[in-house]
């Protein structure tokens, strides 16, 4: 059974204080790992897809990396508008669905 564990559950940062969120996964064969951002009361918003170990993708202050066992979402010099819950999900080879983690709730204080 595919499993996704995200840590920490919650993270408080000061504006400008860089950090990383972790997504550990077990899957029979990884087809893709997805990162989403979810604001309160809204649906998840797609950020990145990573397909193979060593792959990296960047978007503004966010950078996602992937190894064979985990993915990191690095946040560089965060701003208050980066406050949200960040969700990680995996899709297995030949699979038809995403398995989501419970998310990391990020708060960036000004």
């Amino acid at each position, binding site marked *: 059974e595919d499993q*996704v564990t995200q840590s920490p559950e919650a993270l408080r940062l000061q504006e400008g204080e860089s950090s990383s969120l972790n997504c550990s996964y077990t899957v029979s064969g990884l*087809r*893709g790992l*997805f990162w*989403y951002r979810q604001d309160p*009361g*809204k*649906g*998840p*918003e*797609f950020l990145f*897809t990573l*397909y193979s170990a060593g792959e990296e993708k960047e978007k503004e202050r966010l950078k996602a990396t992937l190894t064979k066992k985990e993915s990191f979402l690095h946040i560089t010099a965060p701003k208050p508008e980066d406050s949200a819950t960040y*969700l990680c*999900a995996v*899709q297995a080879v030949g699979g*038809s*669905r*995403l398995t*989501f*983690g*419970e*998310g990391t709730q990020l708060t960036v204080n000004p």
Partner: protein
Amino acid sequence: NAGVTQTPKFRVLKTGQSMTLLCAQDMNHEYMYWYRQDPGMGLRLIHYSVGEGTTAKGEVPDGYNVSRLKKQNFLLGLESAAPSQTSVYFCASSYSMGLAGSDEQFFGPGTRLTVL
């Protein structure tokens, strides 16, 4: 481009009542999905569809039915609502399910359902 829309946004039901949640997408996506999101459980797939006229069970299908009569619409039905179905329901769609670069799922704003 409205993306993925969901109707209604909020609903309160009594145990045993029925209702239908409507999802519509205007991106010509083949694949559509229904999830529920509960505290401590993350997003879980209820049912999905790989094209017009098709449906398939996800991780937690019991108590729900779905239909995809038109490519742009995906309906989720609760025939006899139970308190355990209190949740936030999200619809999503994607262009593909296995083609790199086009398999990201786009989510709707959600429907908050309370069953008393």
